[in-house]
């Protein structure tokens, strides 16, 4: 019963949304170049399936590489920043400057340096994901419970022991929050990267490239299908992070323990 309710409610809700969608098109006589009906979107998606599949794969690769590079890079930089107050104070303002510069301004420079194609797209994705991870993880590493730090000091723990057994675990929830933000931003970075740094012969390019083509050719249902495909990528990454978060935190963190209470 409980499980049935869990699935039944979203399904009913989705059906209601679909009914509203068709209803709005019928009542307000919305033409399909403004809002295509769901079945038209599916038909267009099937029509363009070859380019959509290649596009989704290409964009997913850029997302994967960019995202994991930003996870590793973000973790390393955060550890460095947390390792010394001096480094933190010296470097933080400059990290903020880089963070505040919109990617739209940085992108042409990246293309100039790394050339057209997947490398630039990946770097753009990396930059979009990198800062939320750094900001959150650094915050986590620097806000360890003072009582715990005192306890470690009393037992004469080394700096490394302190980092490994106290600061890092305490920062994990912060890190996961950063990852969640980054995961949602990943497709944005990759699709935007595609529109400026992409390359292809027309049908074998990333999703952002396809979006330009569909838009220019008034293929509105196909545009919606591309939106759906990028949404799938977003879900993939958010689920991935949720899984990582569950694996890392479920045994001890309050956010998971409280959820299990009856």
């Amino acid at each position, binding site marked *: 019963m409980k499980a049935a309710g869990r699935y039944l409610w979203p399904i009913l809700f989705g059906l209601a949304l679909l009914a509203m969608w068709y209803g709005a098109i019928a009542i307000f006589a919305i*033409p*399909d*170049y*403004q809002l295509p009906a769901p079945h038209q979107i599916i038909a267009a998606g099937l029509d363009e399936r070859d380019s959509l599949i290649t596009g989704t794969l290409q964009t997913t690769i850029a997302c994967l590489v960019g995202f994991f590079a930003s996870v590793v890079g973000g973790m390393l930089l955060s550890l460095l920043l947390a390792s010394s107050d001096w480094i933190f104070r010296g470097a933080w303002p400059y990290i903020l400057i880089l963070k505040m510069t919109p990617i739209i301004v940085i992108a*042409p420079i990246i*293309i*100039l340096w790394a050339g*057209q194609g997947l490398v630039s797209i990946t770097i753009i994705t990396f930059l979009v994901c990198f800062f939320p991870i750094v900001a959150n993880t650094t915050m986590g590493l620097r806000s360890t419970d003072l009582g715990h730090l005192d306890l470690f000091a009393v037992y004469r723990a080394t700096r490394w022991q302190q980092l490994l057994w106290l600061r890092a675990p305490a920062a994990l929830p912060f890190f996961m929050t950063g990852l969640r933000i980054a995961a949602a931003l990943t497709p944005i970075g990759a699709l935007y990267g595609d*529109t*400026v740094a*992409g*390359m*292809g*012969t*027309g049908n074998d*390019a990333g999703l952002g*490239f396809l979006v*330009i*083509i*569909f*838009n*220019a*050719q*008034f*293929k*509105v249902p196909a545009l919606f299908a591309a939106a759906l495909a990028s949404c799938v990528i977003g879900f993939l990454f958010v689920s991935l992070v949720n899984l990582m978060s569950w694996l890392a935190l479920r045994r001890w963190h309050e956010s998971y323990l409280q959820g299990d209470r009856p």
Partner: protein
Amino acid sequence: MRKLTSTRGAQGACARWLLALLLIHASGCGDAGSSAENAPAQSAAPSDTPLVKVILQTDWYPQPEHGGFYLADLAGWYEEVGLDVEIRPGANPGSIPQLVAGNQVQFALGTSDNLIVARGRGVPLIGLFPYFQHDPQCVMFHRESGIRTLADLDGRRVMVNPGATYVAWLQQSLGIRLQLIPLDYSIARFLSDPTFIQQCFLTSEPWYAKQEGIEAGVLPLSSSGFDPYRVVYANADWVANNPTHARAFIAASLRGWRAYADGDTVRVHAVIAELNPGQSLPFMAWTREQMAQFQLIDGNPDRNETLGRVSRARVQDLVQQLITLGLLDSELAADDAFALDLMPPELVAP
């Protein structure tokens, strides 16, 4: 132009008078007859019937490629036919058809292939008239690249709008493959990379390259056999409900383009330079020469082309090409794509 004068209230009225005086004065070196005619019409029109406000959305910042429209506005030829035309510059060409479809603007500039594709998908747009017989789109390359024909682009990297119909046409009709890079509307990479090839306007980017000491090679994309017009299109419903105003807009715009092509350029270039500081007088003079050299405005007289003329046969060819490319599902008659009944009859060719 209109924005400058209308937003300043009383000052605007003064400016308008000054401008009118200037125009009468300046007409000595331009199209004397027509300007003298308009002076009384201009002062008489507002008191009789209110002007109908319409918006012409262009495809770029003010430039000589819009010269005829700015001239018609400046010379008062739109007012003379009862229209208050706001010429609105734009730099996001992708979203303009939607603006017209939603009647947020009545008129816009574009190519006839896009117009027909949109029309074929049920978007309520209708072509009014071509202001260029041929599209100024071209590919620009460095001379040392060894490119002589469009077929030589095979396998090369070309920066273009990936959605442009030309891209599909070139690849399909010539059987070549291009490595497409999305257009960033800049020539920075062209200047620094001698292998760089990009889409551009015959009338624009080669000038900038020349300023940097590069004599760029150009090949007009219309030489590929895919040869759309550059047109003014409009909201189809608006045109159906306002045929008189639409007809008036066509006539006044064509008058502007006729005068511009015939040399009435000084005053309109001055206004464009004021609206868009990126445009210098020598640049605009060069642009106009390019338009003449590539027969953009008046077309090729040997092929019965002239300013504003629509050939049904040419539209049919384009329709067939679009069907071949899979961008159009079914036949579309020239009369369904263009409001040919609103055109001066001598401008409609079989």
